[in-house]
């Protein structure tokens, strides 16, 4: 059992949870993830380790409630516990001094990005963070990223915060400015966003890393369900990734595979909504 020490809502359906997991807190490197199962019968959910405090023996998780099992995770209050937390899994991000680095995050991807930006800044890089979301309420970790970034750029689709539009526009401007152009771009977010970033940097030959989120079960290379096509080859995102060369990823295949269980997810959502309707009716 893994005790939940705190659980706060950062954005609609997005929670920050601090969980006691001393061995993982010690072993973890930025870029790695854990597999969490709130309770018996629940799915195994991969979650990026957003931060870790080895002295306290805790890890921080950013959890977006989208399906039944993620909802069970975020509904675990402080003082409660998660049944299974396994990790750290995946390859750590390769951190060195690259010089100027742009960290681009979309939606909840910003949570995955945050530990990488933090590690890159700590390694002496000049980090520009570009984060975007649908509207201001979906912008997360802006203060945390501002504190470690040379510059923080915010975009929203509806213009309610920062620049109106997509993160790619802000990145394009950055690349066009010889004083600010990055040597390395890290992009984490919805697949179309990562693809757009990769297409933007490709003609300029700027190294671009993306963090992929395929469907996983074990997270240890045992099932192959997480396979993604990179440079024409099948890779297991849980052991070879989750980060890959953004210019070599087959995004279309990834996006398609992510829809495998859509019917089940829709059915589960319907069922949950009916439950909630029931609660309202009873309450």
């Amino acid at each position, binding site marked *: 059992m893994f005790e939940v020490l705190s659980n706060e809502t950062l954005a609609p359906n997005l929670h920050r949870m601090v969980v006691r997991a001393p061995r993982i807190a010690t072993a973890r490197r930025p870029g790695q993830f854990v597999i969490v199962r709130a309770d018996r019968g629940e*799915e195994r959910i991969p979650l990026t380790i957003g931060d870790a405090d080895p002295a306290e023996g805790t890890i921080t998780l950013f959890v977006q409630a989208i399906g039944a099992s993620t909802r069970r995770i975020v509904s675990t209050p402080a003082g409660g516990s998660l049944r299974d937390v396994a990790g750290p899994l995946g390859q750590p991000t390769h951190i060195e001094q690259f010089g100027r680095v742009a960290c681009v995050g979309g939606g909840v991807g910003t949570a995955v990005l945050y530990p990488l930006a933090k590690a890159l800044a700590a390694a002496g890089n000049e980090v520009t963070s570009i984060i975007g979301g649908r509207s201001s309420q979906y912008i997360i970790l802006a203060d945390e990223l501002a504190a470690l970034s040379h510059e923080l750029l915010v975009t929203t689709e509806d213009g309610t915060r920062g620049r109106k539009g997509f993160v790619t526009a802000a990145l394009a401007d950055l690349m066009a400015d010889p004083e600010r152009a990055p040597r390395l771009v890290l992009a984490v977010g919805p697949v179309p966003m990562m693809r757009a970033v990769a297409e933007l940097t490709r003609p300029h030959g700027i190294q671009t890393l993306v963090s992929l989120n395929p469907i996983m079960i074990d997270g240890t290379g045992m099932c192959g369900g997480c396979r993604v096509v990179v440079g024409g080859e099948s890779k297991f995102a849980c052991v070879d990734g989750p980060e890959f060369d953004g210019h070599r990823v087959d995004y279309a295949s990834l996006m398609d595979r992510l829809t495998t269980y859509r019917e089940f997810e829709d059915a589960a959502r319907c069922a949950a909504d009916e439950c909630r309707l029931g609660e309202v009716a009873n309450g």
Partner: protein
Amino acid sequence: MANDLAMKERLAIPRVHMPELDATERSRNFAEVNRGLEMTDAVREAQRCIQCKHRPCVDGCPVGVSIPEVLDALAAEDLPLAARILRGDNALPAVCGRVCPQETQCEAKCVRGVKGDAVAIGYLERFVADWAMANPDRLGQADRPAASDRTVAVVGAGPAGLTAAGELARAGHRVTVFEALHDTGGVLRYGIPEFRLPKEIIDSEVEQLAALGVAIDCNVIIGKTLTLDQLRAEFDAVFIANGAGLPMMLDLKGENLKGVYSANELLTRVNLMEAGRNPAATTPVIAGKSVAVIGGGNTAMDCVRTARRLGAQRAMIVYRRSEAEMPARVEEIKHAKEEGVEFVMLTAPLEIIGNESGWVAALRCRRMELGPPDDSGRRKPVPVEGSEFDLPADVVVNAIGTRANPLLTATAPDLDLNTWGNIVVDDAGATSLPGVFAGGDMVRGGATVILAMGDGKRAAAAINRALAG
């Protein structure tokens, strides 16, 4: 009652039949197919054993169970004695009685099989083990040796790891089993389906280990959560039994279409995560209407029979050799056929064809014919030119095999591996690192439960010697 039948009487008894669930009914549910023998039938079957002096069956058993003694006690209806002997020799008899390929091991050597049917040793092993599980109070207390202050770490809670843990705990050592998944059993839990091996059997075996004082630490991935070096620093000895869990890819066009599963993924979803068999489970599984499973081993049979139970109207085995070459247990092949599984033999997959929305639509295949024998001694399949055809399928399962998972070994550069990534050990199970032993599929590649257990037993004996010295 003593087992003192005359030879003629023994020879006159026909081999017992295993009661089974009706094939049509069972192909729609996950209940165990083999129901187990009744006491009178089991005793009678045990009496078929002629107690021959040279005991060939024992040589056929990879862990050398004292089969004639167990059968003699059973034939005399002394079940506590039969159970004590069996359990002394085999740590997981209720498992082995269900999943061992007896027809190529003990029963293949049985003298009675020369002119007629071998004694049904596997059924009887299961019978005695199930009796023991149901009657723990009648077994008598096993002697617990004095507790030692030595500690042993076991990596992996599959049959090799569990067997070693039991042996080491019985020797008084303090044992901790580290398991990567959230539950124990290894392939017994996530691979072999409920209809062949009910999961409560694994639970019961693991409870017995816990009662012996074995600590089971799930969700710990050695090589990730803790390193082998950390284990070596913290424990007096380490036994590595992390299996061969990495699926081999088909390397066919279309492998990443939706509806293509590795055997491990399909089986893990259904067995470990209970998809499609427990309405309360939240993990989904794609239940195909027409499912093609590529491969001819036990894993392929488990996948195809699982697909049938998930509702497939057509469930097919696609195998490039002929049925005679199939490595699966004969009972699995028989059960699969009874359940309506189609066997598409001498057929090799060429490509997986998708539809416009990215789902599997068909498996493109080519006919094969058997040529001269290859290195394995089996006749090598060669393609028949111009014989391509499409098998309509909405789910394709790759059950061609697994390899060693490098997760642990990648972080232990001093550990000697062979070219396939398996850990190299000596006859006692010792690796190139002092105090580190290994066994099971991690050493052998995909093998069998009983060989894995034999490795666990042998390594535990070597560890006991090392810790005593």
